[in-house]
């Protein structure tokens, strides 16, 4: 304060900021990136440790031996599922009841804003004809087909050079083929309806105040049968034990995450996403923790764990520690992001491998989509993670008993919990399964990047200020002179139009694609999903063309004043502050997203001005726009997974990701799409506006 109230010292500081601005900005940006890269090295990354006392020291002995039973259940389930073509609800009910659970079902239906092309949904049409939709059917452009390799399948790659079996071969790397048949669908594809089945194991002599959840999401394809088998076998084993203090809910959901979301909303009796579902008949108190299981083979080579949830939420680190404890105890091979754990952290190899895992985690967390059905539990403050069984070409395999024992151990320790998991970290990054970076250590990286924006804004503010002072008093008399109201008024008025127009563009980007899909499908030969994506891109691109038309009448007035630069400077100042504010808020809630956007958007934002090499700036600005960031992230992500993309595939994946982003916003309440369209895209347009200021 003393520094600021003393005019002499303030001027000295101002001069420092002005003169050293460029080097300071560069330094700050480099420091931010370097800090982030340094996170994988041991002083910054720490070994994980169990904080929760109730789960740490107590010993449990796993007795699960129902491997054969699990396989038998899985076979039966798969057979019944094949026969009925949907989730065999009656069979599940019967089986759950026979192992002694209290069984309930819940039916739900959800009208999607537009058809989901990545998942085959068994749809009850208007004529009540359930039937699987042919995947490579006659609808849509060719780029529909590779959507099959969506972000949900990434766990299929593991280790250094192992390419697992999974969605890749099924439809992923085909050449895009253009199909010309575009008849309207004979049934209402957008209505998804299904039934969840859940059984409650009531803890003996307890009052049903707390519960744990084991959930298996079942999609429309025939995966996850083994997970259902293991769930049932575990239920049978757990039912015979006397030691349970918390109820255990065994949940099998239909339509993957849609079912999970429907169940969670009904359990908490809220309606967040416009899901229609029947109310739940049975409840079991407050859910303390949940584990989602995905298994599609009788044997597994490794277990992959997914922690990233909706909007980048993470479960308490203790839950992951618990999983890791039982991985070690059972000698299981456990992976994170499909990557094995580096052993040697002292040399450079370990940290470099850790960096890959860390980047993968950052990309996944930044996407804000739930990576597994556990991601939806996090909204309700239920700590949850997803375990995926991976079956690759590795020699040593584990059977279901090993997986079952790990799960049994986890549930028994969770059963010991006295309080909700709260002791350990909620905000962390993971370079490996046994290493973490806490929030205190990774935040400076984002802080340094945002400092660039702050410095630039300060420079602009001072320049604006000096320009005013310079105009009025050429001698530069000392003293904090307040800028005169009329000159400021003109400056602000010229900002209103670009701000409003860019925000309106954002709003259009948010609203129009879904609203206008029917108009688009009527007038153009496209399907709904394509219509949405193409409208998105069209509006996005239209935003770039706008500024040439908008500020011309205003710029005349600005030019007429004595300082011609003041218009764009004021606009850039506002844009910088707006961007810094947004990125700061995002980095606090979802560090990965904030950091990723800051890394890309900050340099272009700092450089944008209507002088100098404009084409270069424009190219840079386009390359760092939110959409380009998404495209780049896709390439980086596949590169890190050692499954590089060609340009065409990348483009198709990009289109798929756009559609998925919009869809997930509507179905699960993912915030990435509104954030980009309502917040960052308008802000980015402001910089575009600055660049083409006349």
């Amino acid at each position, binding site marked *: 304060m003393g520094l600021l109230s003393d005019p002499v010292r303030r001027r000295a500081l101002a001069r420092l900021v002005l003169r050293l601005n460029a080097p300071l900005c560069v330094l700050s940006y480099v420091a931010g990136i370097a800090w982030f890269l340094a996170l994988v090295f041991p002083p910054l990354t720490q070994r994980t440790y169990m904080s929760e006392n109730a789960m740490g020291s107590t010993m449990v002995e796993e007795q699960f031996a129902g491997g054969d039973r699990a396989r038998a259940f899985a076979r039966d389930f798969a057979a019944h599922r094949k026969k009925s073509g949907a989730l065999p609800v009656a069979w599940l009910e019967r089986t759950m009841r026979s192992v002694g659970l209290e069984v309930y079902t819940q039916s739900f239906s959800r009208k999607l804003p537009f058809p989901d092309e990545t998942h085959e949904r068994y749809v009850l049409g208007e004529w009540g004809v359930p039937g699987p939709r042919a995947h490579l059917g006659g609808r849509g452009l060719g780029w529909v087909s590779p959507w099959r390799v969506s972000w949900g399948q990434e766990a299929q790659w593991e280790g250094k050079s192992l390419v697992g079996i999974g969605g890749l071969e099924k439809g992923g790397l085909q050449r895009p083929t253009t199909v010309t048949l575009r008849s309207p669908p004979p049934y209402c594809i957008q209505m998804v309806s299904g039934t969840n089945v859940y059984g409650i194991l009531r803890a003996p002599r307890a*009052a049903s105040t707390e519960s744990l959840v084991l959930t298996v999401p079942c999609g429309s394809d025939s995966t996850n049968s083994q997970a259902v088998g293991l769930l049932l076998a575990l239920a049978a084993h757990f039912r015979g034990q006397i030691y349970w203090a918390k109820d255990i809910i065994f949940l099998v959901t239909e339509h993957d995450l849609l079912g999970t979301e429907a169940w969670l909303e009904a359990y908490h009796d809220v309606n967040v996403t416009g899901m229609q579902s029947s109310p739940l008949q049975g409840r079991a108190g407050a859910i303390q923790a949940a584990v989602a299981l995905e298994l599609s083979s009788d044997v597994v080579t490794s277990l992959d764990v997914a922690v990233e949830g909706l909007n980048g939420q993470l479960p308490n680190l203790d839950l992951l520690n618990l999983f890791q404890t039982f991985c070690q105890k059972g000698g299981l091979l456990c992976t994170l992001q499909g990557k094995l754990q580096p052993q040697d952290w002292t040399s450079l190899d370990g940290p470099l491998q850790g960096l890959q895992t860390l980047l993968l985690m950052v990309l996944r967390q930044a996407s804000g989509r739930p990576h597994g059905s556990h991601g939806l539990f996090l909204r309700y403050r239920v700590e949850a993670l997803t375990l995926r069984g991976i079956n690759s070409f590795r020699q040593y395999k584990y059977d279901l008993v090993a997986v079952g024992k790990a799960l049994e151990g986890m549930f028994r320790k969770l059963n010991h919990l006295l309080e909700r998991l709260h002791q350990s970290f909620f905000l962390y990054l993971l370079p490996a399964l046994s290493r973490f970076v806490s929030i205190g250590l990774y935040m400076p990286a984002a802080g340094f990047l945002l400092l660039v924006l702050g410095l630039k804004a300060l420079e602009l503010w001072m320049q604006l200020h000096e320009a005013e002072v310079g105009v009025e008093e050429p001698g530069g008399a000392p003293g904090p002179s307040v800028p005169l109201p009329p000159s400021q008024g003109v400056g602000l008025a010229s900002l209103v139009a670009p701000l409003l127009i860019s925000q309106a563009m954002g709003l259009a980007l948010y609203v129009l694609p879904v609203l206008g899909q029917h108009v688009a499908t009527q007038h153009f030969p496209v399907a709904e999903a394509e219509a949405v994506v193409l409208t998105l891109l069209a509006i996005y691109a239209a935003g770039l063309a706008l500024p040439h038309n908008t500020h011309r009448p205003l710029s005349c007035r600005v030019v007429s004043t004595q300082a011609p630069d003041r218009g764009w400077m004021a606009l850039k100042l506002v844009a910088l502050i707006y961007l810094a504010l947004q990125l700061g808020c995002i980095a606090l809630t979802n560090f990965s997203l904030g950091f990723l956007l800051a890394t890309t958007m900050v340099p272009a934002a700092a450089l944008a001005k209507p002088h100098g090499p404009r084409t270069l700036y424009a190219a840079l600005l386009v390359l760092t726009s939110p959409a380009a960031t998404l495209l780049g992230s896709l390439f980086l992500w596949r590169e890190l997974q050692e499954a590089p993309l060609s340009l065409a595939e990348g483009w198709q994946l990009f289109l798929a990701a756009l559609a998925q982003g919009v869809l997930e916003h509507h179905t699960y309440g993912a915030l990435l799409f509104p954030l980009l369209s309502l917040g960052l895209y308008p802000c980015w347009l402001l910089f575009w506006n600055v660049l083409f200021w006349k």
Partner: protein
Amino acid sequence: MAAAMPLALLVLLLLGRRGWCLAEPPRDSLREELVITPLPSGDVAATFQFRTRWDSELQREGDTDHYFLRYAVLPREVVCTENLTPWKKLLPCSSKAGLSVLLKADRLFHTSYHSQAVHIRPVCRNARCTSISWELRQTLSVVFDAFITGQGKKDWSLFRMFSRTLTEPCPLASESRVYVDITNYNQDNETLEVNPPPTTTYQDVILGTRKIYAIYDLLDTAMINNSRNLNIQLKWKRPPENEAPPVPFLHAQRYVSGYGLQKGELSTLLYNTHPYRAFPVLLLDTVPWYLRLYVHTLTITSKGKENKPSYIHYQPAQDRLQPHLLEMLIQLPANSVTKVSIQFERALLKWTEYTPDPNHGFYVSPSVLSALVPSVVAAKPVDWEESPLFNSLFPVSDGSNYFVRLYTEPLLVNLPTPDFSMPYNVICLTCTVVAVCYGSFYNLLTRTFHIEEPRTGGLAKRLANLIRRARGVPPL
């Protein structure tokens, strides 16, 4: 709904209904009985009842003053042997003889349901109620689980349940009986076989349905002397299928809805599964003060329509003094689900008011439902003193109804909880920030600014000006 109720010590200060007062009840008497009810799921329920009466010199003075009526509930109490041992010591024969030899802690706590109660009340000794006796009634109900205790087998015996058999009656007992529910679930043939075959049976209407009980009287010397012990065995003639258990006419469920730590909603679902009879239910809710109820959000809906309660009594909470009390009389339409919901806001407690395990959550006591449920079979009014003790658990008012009191499950609600490792740091940090901000703002606000003309004098300045002149720069 079927959750194990915490031990509730219910002190009935009120006299029972007039019909309960006998002219001359037996004095210093002990009646004990055990009711075994095999359930179609393969589980078996066992209910012990012990009733002791003794004379008292206390005189009854008119009607009880309702002002002194108290209701308290402890929503969280895990029953264990510490509850059982003192309870057993109240029995005249302790656990030495009679039915109480079966009360072995390791078996009783190997069950899926456990409920233990002590009721004490005065009983009139004559019609004008000039002198009274005290009645102590102890009940213990357990449900043995086919999956946990029975290891999948559904045939039971006393030995399998309690790892003991009956050898002798309690010498102090005036009545000591074991009742086994042998009601046929199907009309055509017997479903259950008991061994040894009972000498007598007893028929009555319990909970609105007709029941048949086999009676084993321990005071009947022939009963035990034949084999020196009595080990009643139950055998299902046709193993019961895995089907959903029959649903009672009235059941209820309670839960907290919503997420986040600011607001929430308490919802109680009341199920009336009777196909054609509607009946009223008295719902009593006590909610701790730290859930601030919004009474205007109280909604009661049945079958999609608003259900207006015929009586509401609400006593608002006072912070740290008294909980909310909400009592309503609601008519439940036939075959319907009634949802009673009320929104609340979670209060922020003072930091010393949190329990040692605040992240566990705070318990909210169960709602209490009292109802007269219509019977399927009309019951005849019975003589309370002559009929078995379990009959009075579900008193029948006029033959077409029976009285039921239900407790819903207690709730666990999370309150906004500070991180208790942090307060010190947070307080220090905030105080520093406030002090720094306040200090400098105060400084700025109280200081008067005036422009100071640069002084002409000063050696340093003169020197500097000399240099500047040499450089050709305007002087300072």
